[in-house]
C-alpha cells in the first residue's frame, strides 16, 4: 500500500465555518478588534443564503436600507475583507473536534486547522418533501425554495411553468412573487395552518398584487404525476390532518416545499457538541453564543433556524465579543450557570443558559419561539417567582423569534422561565 501523505496542519486564532451573514458578522467584528479570523465557505460564492436571493428585503439593520439579498451578501463580504478577514471559498469542513480543530478539503488539498476559538455558522436548510412524508409518486418537479432560488439566480432557469407553493412564511410569499414576475403561473400558495405565517405586508405585496390565491388550512394529500409533477391533491383539513371537505386537484408541473427550516447541524452532532432538540438540533449556547464546549461558538440560523439574515448578522457581532473575551481573558472559574427554560406557550429560547463570571452584568437578549401562534403577546421572564423582564408584541408565530431583554441584575443560578401570554391565532 502506498504511503499516506500526511495532512498538513495550520494554526489560526479564530476559524469561522460558513461565510453567511452570521459568519461574516463574527469575522468582521473580530477583525475590528484586532484578531485576524479565517472564514471558510463551501460555496464558490460567499454570502450564505442571501447570495442566492435576488429579491429585496435585506440590510435594514446593517446598512439602514432595504436591498436585494445578492447586494447584501456582496456588501457583507466586502466589509469583512476590507476589515482584514481572510476568506476562502470552495472549502468544505469535513469534521470538527472538541479540541477546536477542523478538517477541511478544497481542490488544493486537505488541511487540519488548529484554532484557539472555533465559530460554527453553518446556517439552516428547508425540510425536504420526503422528511415531510408527503404521499404520492416521486416525479421531477418537486423542490425546496432554496433550490429554486439557485436555479433562478445562478442558472437563469425557472423551476417549471405552473407552480404550487407549500408554506406561507415570508420566504414562500416572496418566492411566489419572484417566480410570477419571472414568467411562472403560481396556481396557489397552500398553507396547512389556519393563518398566514409571513407578514401581512408580504401577502399584499407578493400575492394580492399578482392575484395569487392563498389556501389557508389546506394540506397536500398527494403529489401526482409520472415523469414530471402533474398536480397536487389538496384538501381543507383540521389541525390533525383530517380532511374537512372533499379533496381536489390543483394541476401544476412544480411543487415547492418552502420554509420549515432546520439547522445544518451535522458538524455539531458529529463533534458531540450538546444540542437542543427544541431548536431542531442546533447547539446549546450561552448569551455570548459559546457552546457547552469551551472555545467553540455557534451563531446565526444554526442556533435558531430561520430568522431574517439581518438578525443572523446581529448574532454574529455579539458572538464576536464573546470570542474576543474568551481569547483575551481565559475563564477564571467559579462561574454561575443559569438555565433558561421554555415555559407556558413557549417552544424554545435561545440562549439556553446564561453564564456569569462575577463582574459581568450586560443586558441579555432572549430569542423566543412561541407555540401556538399568538396575538397580543406578552412575554415574561421569571426567576424564582419574580419577573425579570418582559416585552410586548402584536403577534408571534412559531417559525420566527420574538425578543425579550433581561435587565442587568445580580447573577444567580436559579432557572429563568420564559412564558408567553396572548390569544391563540386560529
Amino acid at each position, binding site marked *: 500500500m502506498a504511503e499516506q*501523505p500526511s495532512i498538513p496542519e495550520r494554526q489560526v486564532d479564530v476559524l469561522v465555518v460558513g461565510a453567511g451573514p452570521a459568519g461574516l458578522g463574527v469575522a468582521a467584528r473580530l477583525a475590528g478588534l484586532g484578531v485576524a479570523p479565517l472564514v471558510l465557505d463551501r460555496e464558490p460564492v460567499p454570502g450564505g443564503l442571501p447570495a442566492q436571493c435576488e429579491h429585496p428585503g435585506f440590510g435594514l439593520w446593517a446598512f439602514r436600507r432595504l436591498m436585494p439579498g445578492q447586494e447584501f451578501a456582496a456588501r457583507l463580504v466586502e466589509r469583512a475583507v476590507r476589515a482584514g478577514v481572510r476568506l476562502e471559498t470552495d472549502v*468544505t469542513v*469535513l469534521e470538527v473536534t472538541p479540541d477546536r480543530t477542523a478538517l477541511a478539503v478544497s*481542490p488544493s488539498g486537505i488541511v487540519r486547522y488548529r484554532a484557539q476559538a472555533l465559530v460554527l455558522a453553518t446556517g439552516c436548510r428547508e425540510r425536504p418533501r420526503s422528511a415531510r412524508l408527503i404521499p404520492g*409518486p416521486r416525479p*421531477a418537479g418537486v423542490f425546496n425554495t432554496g433550490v429554486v432560488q439557485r436555479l433562478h439566480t445562478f442558472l437563469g432557469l425557472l423551476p417549471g411553468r405552473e407552480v404550487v407553493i407549500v408554506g406561507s412564511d415570508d420566504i414562500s410569499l416572496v418566492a411566489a412573487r419572484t417566480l410570477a*414576475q419571472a414568467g411562472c403561473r403560481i396556481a396557489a400558495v397552500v398553507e396547512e395552518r389556519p393563518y398566514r405565517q409571513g407578514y401581512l405586508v408580504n401577502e399584499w405585496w407578493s400575492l394580492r398584487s399578482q392575484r395569487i390565491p392563498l389556501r389557508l388550512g389546506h394540506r397536500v394529500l398527494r403529489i401526482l404525476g409520472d415523469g414530471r409533477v402533474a398536480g397536487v391533491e389538496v384538501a381543507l383539513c383540521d389541525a390533525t390532518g383530517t380532511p374537512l371537505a372533499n379533496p381536489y386537484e390543483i394541476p401544476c408541473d412544480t411543487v415547492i416545499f418552502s420554509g420549515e427550516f432546520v439547522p445544518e447541524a451535522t458538524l455539531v*452532532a458529529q463533534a458531540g457538541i450538546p444540542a437542543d432538540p427544541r431548536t431542531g438540533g442546533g447547539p446549546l449556547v450561552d448569551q455570548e453564543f459559546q457552546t457547552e464546549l469551551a472555545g467553540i461558538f455557534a451563531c446565526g440560523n444554526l442556533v435558531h433556524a430561520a430568522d431574517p439574515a439581518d438578525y443572523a448578522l446581529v448574532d454574529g457581532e455579539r458572538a464576536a465579543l464573546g470570542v474576543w473575551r474568551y481569547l483575551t481573558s481565559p475563564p477564571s472559574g467559579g462561574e454561575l450557570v443559569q438555565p433558561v427554560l421554555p415555559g407556558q406557550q413557549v417552544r424554545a429560547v435561545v440562549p439556553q443558559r446564561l453564564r456569569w463570571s462575577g463582574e459581568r452584568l450586560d443586558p441579555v437578549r432572549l430569542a423566543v419561539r412561541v407555540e401556538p401562534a399568538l396575538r397580543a403577546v406578552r412575554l415574561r421572564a421569571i426567576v424564582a417567582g419574580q419577573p425579570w423582564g418582559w416585552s410586548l408584541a402584536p403577534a408571534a408565530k412559531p417559525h420566527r423569534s420574538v425578543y425579550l431583554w433581561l435587565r442587568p441584575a445580580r447573577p444567580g443560578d436559579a432557572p429563568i422561565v420564559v412564558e408567553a401570554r396572548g390569544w391563540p391565532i386560529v
Partner: protein
Amino acid sequence: MGAIPGACDYDYLIVGAGVIGCAIARELVRSPVRVGVVEQGWDVAEGASKANSSILHTGFDAKPGTREARLVAEGWWLWQQEAPELGVPILRTGAVMLALDEEQAQELERWRRNAFENGVTDVELLTRDRVLALAPAANPAVVRGLFVPRESVTCTFTATVALAEQAAVNGTVFHFGHRVTGIERSPDGSYRVLTDRGPLTARWLIDAAGLWADEIARWAGADGLVITPRKGEFLVLDKSARAKVPLIHLPVPTPISKGILVAPTANGNVLLGPTAEDIGDKRDLSVTASGLQRAREGALRLAPALADEPVIATYAGLRPASSAGDYVIEIHPRDRLVLAAGIRSTGLSSALAVAREVVRGLLEAGEPLASSESPLRPRPRRSWAPGQPRPCTRPELVAADPSYGRVLCLCELVSEGEIREALRAPIPATTLDAIKKRTWAMAGRCQGFYCTAAILQFMSRELRVPVSGLTKSGPGSPVAGPPVASRGRRGHG
C-alpha cells in the same frame, strides 16, 4: 436498420436491465456471443432492483425444496467470491429474528429447523440477554432471538451497476429507453422484438422483465405466467441511527410476508420497512400515508429506540411475485425462449446463481457456451463504493486530482470527481437519478437542498447539454423549466 438480411442483431436478447437481466448478460458474455439488453427505463435498476432492502439473504427462511431456496443459498456464496472484484460492498452484519412473546418464541425453533433444511447451519437461538447485547436498540420486551450470522447487507444500486458495467465492458449492448411493444417470430424461428424505438432481432429471447415478465412471456408465446406487483414501502433514517443498529432486526415472519424489518445500509443509514400489499397497477410507485405509518410502527415494534431518529427519505418498490409462488426459471429450447421471472424480493441475493442456472439450462439445450470459470475483463475501478471513505477524505486522491477536493454534495460528501466518473462510466449516468444511484449525491439528509443546482450545472458542462435538457429519470421528467422570461424586468415593482 442496417442489419444483414437473415442475420440477427443478437444471439441473446435480454428484456430487462434489472439485477437479474444484468447478471445473465454478464454470465453470457463469458462466451463469444452477441448479447443485447433492452430496457424501458433510462438506466439499469429502474424496477424492483431500484427499491428493495439491499439485504443479501442466506435463504435461511425460504421454503425448503424450492428453487428460490436453492438459488438464494448459492447466490450468497457467489456474491462472496465476486463482490471484491466487482467493487460491490458486502457488510456481514448478521441478522437477529426477534420473538416478542412466548408464542413467537415457540416459532423460532421452527425457523431454526427451516434454516438447517436450507443448509444454513450456523444459526443460533439466543437468550434475551444475548439478543440485547447484540441489538441494543431492540425492544426490551424481546423474549428470545434467532441469530443468523451470515445475513448481510449490500447495495442494490452498486450491485446492479457493477454487473451491468462488467457486462458492457465485455461486449453487451444496452438499449435504454426502449419499451417493448410486441414480439414477432420470423419463419426461421428468430425473434423480432418491436419497441417504441424500432425492432431488435435475436436468436434467443430471455425474459427478465420483472414486473412485466408475464406480458413479455405472453407475447413470446408462453402462457400461464401471472406477475402480481406487491408493494413495499420504506423509510430511510439519517446516519445518526446507524450506531444503534449494528445488525438486521427481523420480525418472526407471518404467512403473508417476511415482515417489516430494521436494517442497516451499506451507506450508513437505517431502513425501516417494507410493507407488503398486493396491488393492481405495475406503475404505482407512490408512497402512502398509511403505508409509511405501518412501516414505521412495525419497525418501532422491533426497535422502539429509533422513534426520534429523523426520517430523510421514503420510497416504494414493487416485488414481482409470480402466481407459482416460486421463481419461474424455464428454458424452452424449441422456442429459444428463457423465462427468469417471479423473482420477487430475493433477486439481489440470488442474481448470480440465477444467471448460472440460465446458462446451465442453455448448455443442456445444446448452446455452445463457455463455462462459468471463463474470465471476464474487469469493470473499471471507481474511487468510491458505499461504506468506503469518500475520496475527499483521502489526501492522496485529492492531491492527485483536485476535482476530488471540490465537494458538491455536503451530506454525502460527493465530489465533482465521483460525479465525473459516473458520467464517463461504461454505462454512463445521464440522469439525476442515475447520478444518485452511483454516487448517493442528493440522497442524504438535505435531499439535494444544497447541491442539486451545482450538480446540474456540472452535468450540463460535462455532457454539453443545457440544464433545461437534463432529466430526473429520462425524457418526460425534465428537472427544470424554461429560462427566466424577464430577467431584464427584475427590480421593477
